[in-house]
């Protein structure tokens, strides 16, 4: 392979990372917040799909894609709130209920979304950060969507808040030792309810990105398990919001391997390379399962680790 081709592939991977990673990032940040409080919400896949549908529908009706983004967040927060409320009832398993919420979210999205498969809604515009380069490939790869920047800001804010705010400490404490939190008179259920709802809000926004920017339409096959992979990603990122961003970019880049190779004429194994994110998920799950560091960073109250 000549140098130019390698360059093309690398630039395509960069572009893919910047383009594809945003939904991963939002779902992972949402899941990170929820898990830090001591709950697992596997329903975020459903939240993502419902967010995508809601964003598309609201954008279509209102003409404002940003209103769609907000609506997607609210839909996600509503699903999160249901999860947060039901899981505080005695003997409800958050993982089982999360799976039910995943099916509910996708089901609702398909039901209400039937009417929006055909029409075209106004999309979100990207910011071009590649103006400095004369290379058109770089210019197109650096088409960055504002939501990506928002996601990075959210991650920074979460990382700062976990260490420096009362709410951050309360979330960590509830996730680490519910008994300690209760002994202080903190309502662990309330903290988890709010964390799950806020996590749902973020995941909903991730969905809006899918339908309003990339791929940029609403259909039933829009999400291919990104919401579920984001859960794996949180484990990989060891519950650190900044590492969630890095992990999301990595996942985005692997997702772009197939198209990038295709763009330089390598079509062999296209479907295999398209499966790269899933393979990466598997490898990461196996690798991190035995990791001692992950064992130390995992919130103590998480039901997957108990």
């Amino acid at each position, binding site marked *: 392979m000549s140098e130019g081709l390698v360059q093309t592939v690398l630039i395509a991977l960069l572009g893919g990372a910047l383009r594809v990673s945003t939904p991963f990032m939002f779902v992972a940040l949402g899941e990170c917040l929820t898990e830090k409080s001591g709950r697992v919400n596997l329903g975020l896949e459903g939240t993502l799909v419902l967010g995508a549908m809601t964003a598309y529908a609201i954008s279509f009706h209102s003409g404002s894609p940003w209103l769609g983004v907000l609506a997607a967040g609210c839909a996600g927060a509503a699903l999160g709130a249901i999860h947060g409320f039901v899981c505080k009832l005695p003997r409800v398993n958050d993982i089982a209920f999360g799976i039910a919420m995943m099916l509910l979210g996708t089901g609702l999205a398909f039901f209400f979304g039937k009417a929006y498969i055909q029409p075209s809604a106004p999309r979100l515009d990207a910011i071009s950060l590649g103006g400095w380069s004369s290379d058109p490939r770089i210019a197109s790869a650096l088409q960055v969507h504002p939501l990506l920047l928002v996601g990075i800001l959210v991650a920074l804010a979460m990382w700062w808040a976990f260490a420096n*705010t009362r709410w951050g*400490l309360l979330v*960590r404490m509830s996730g680490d*030792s519910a008994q300690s939190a209760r*002994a202080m008179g903190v309502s662990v259920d309330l903290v988890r309810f709010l964390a799950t709802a806020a996590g749902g809000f973020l995941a909903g926004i991730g969905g809006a990105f899918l339908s309003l920017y990339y791929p940029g339409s609403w259909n039933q096959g829009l999400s291919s398990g990104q919401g579920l992979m984001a859960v794996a990603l949180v484990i990989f990122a060891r519950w650190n919001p900044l590492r969630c961003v890095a992990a999301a970019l990595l996942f985005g880049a692997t997702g772009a391997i197939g198209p990038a190779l295709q763009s330089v004429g390598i079509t062999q194994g296209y479907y295999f390379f398209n499966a790269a994110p899933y393979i990466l998920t598997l490898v990461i799950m196996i690798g991190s399962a035995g990791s001692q560091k992950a064992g130390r960073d995992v919130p103590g109250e998480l039901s997957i680790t108990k």
Partner: protein
Amino acid sequence: MQASAPGIVQGGRAIGLETVGFSKQFGALRALDDVTLKVEPGSFHALLGENGAGKSTLVKCIMGFYRADSGDLLLDGREEKIRNPREARALGLGMVYQHFTLAPALTGAENLVISRADAPAIIDWAKETKRLDAFLDRMPFRAPLHVPVSQLSAGEKQKLEILKLLYLDQRFLILDEPTSVLTPQEADEILSLLRGMTDRGEITILMITHKFREVTAFADSLTVLRRGARVGGGKVGEITTEAMARMMIGDTPIRERAARQPTPPRAPLLELAAVYAVGPEGKNVLDGVDLKVRGGEIVGLAGVSGNGQSQLVEAMSGQIAIDDGCVLIRNQRFEPTREAFHRLKIFGLPEEPLKNAAAARMSVAENMAFRNFERPPNASLGWWLRPSAIRARARDLIGRYHVKTQSPDAPIGDLSGGNVQRAILARELSSDVDVLIVANPCFGLDFASVAEIRAQIMDQRNRGAAVLLISEDLDEILELSDQVAVMSEGRVVYVAPIAQTDRATIGMHMAGHD
């Protein structure tokens, strides 16, 4: 309300507390029966009683976890109603529980700041650190504040728990068996510092304990509960420890202490040679354990909890893997398989037997057959079980070991702690025993059960079994052992015959000093 101003403990602000006629009914059980307890301001008051005597219920009623059915609570002579722990906290009452209540992943500083009722929404760490340092300077002891609590030793955690209460300006401290996780030296240090604070009138202390030594050394007054009622109390010094013990147990007859018969020296039956095991965090939880136990000998393994004792038991029972080194029984390498346990006659009573040695929802009879359900007469052909035989054998053991259960078919989880302990011990001792491994066999049991279980252990020794007794209760070790070993940070750091050692020496080694 002053609780927001952290740690301004000044002289003369200790709170006095009085419960008048506290009663509490749980179903058919009268947990508290007209209990009157008077704790003078600035005193160090000990609350004694056996397990189930109502000590915990009483302090939980004071702290607002439960509501007493009747009775009044007086603070400094004023009647107060405490409906929940938050109200107790606002009135200056604080409690240190037997389990730690600090969030392990948070640092000490984070734990302290967030525990404040007025923790700021955005925490200015520079300012808070300065305030914490100033607070620590006024305290008689310190604890590391800037590492996650999970990395602290048990003693440091316990100090931090107490510092937290003082930081929250709580001036009536209830301590629930505060020294069970400490070395004798650490316990003495913390208690004497607290005693100094009570003497200066800064705080009042109500301490639940069962260690007479701590009562006589540090407390100035005491109250004894039995079966939910106050049976005695007064000034320390006016009541002998014998009298305290009598008040605690009442007229319950106690089996005579098993006599230690002289045994001829024998060859080591159980030998651990450089046993290593890596824990989940990558640290060596067992760091080259060497230990020998002869037949007809009890080796008491002392140590502060969390120094590898539980892992040692788990490694020998096959619950965790041994990464290096080996366990020898009669000079043969021992792998923890069912077949080897049977052939080499190894039995054991792990700590928390309901969790570690029983299936809580299976019946007492089934649990008692765990060791031999596939052998005749419990089964034919090695797989066809005969429940009638299993039940008959269980009935026999239940009778012989005085297990209180409604029937052999009751789930073992329904039994009280002491009876689960007896049932499992019955199972383990019912056949010929060569090696016996027991861990904290008497934890949380009443006097009668304690005496009986210790006698059973001594019987096995006298019959020639090699007994490894792992215990956090130093008195138990001193009473039963022929040899004392001390475990610290995953290693056996000290071994000595019982006649050539004493509490202070053992304590030094428990703390990791040579």
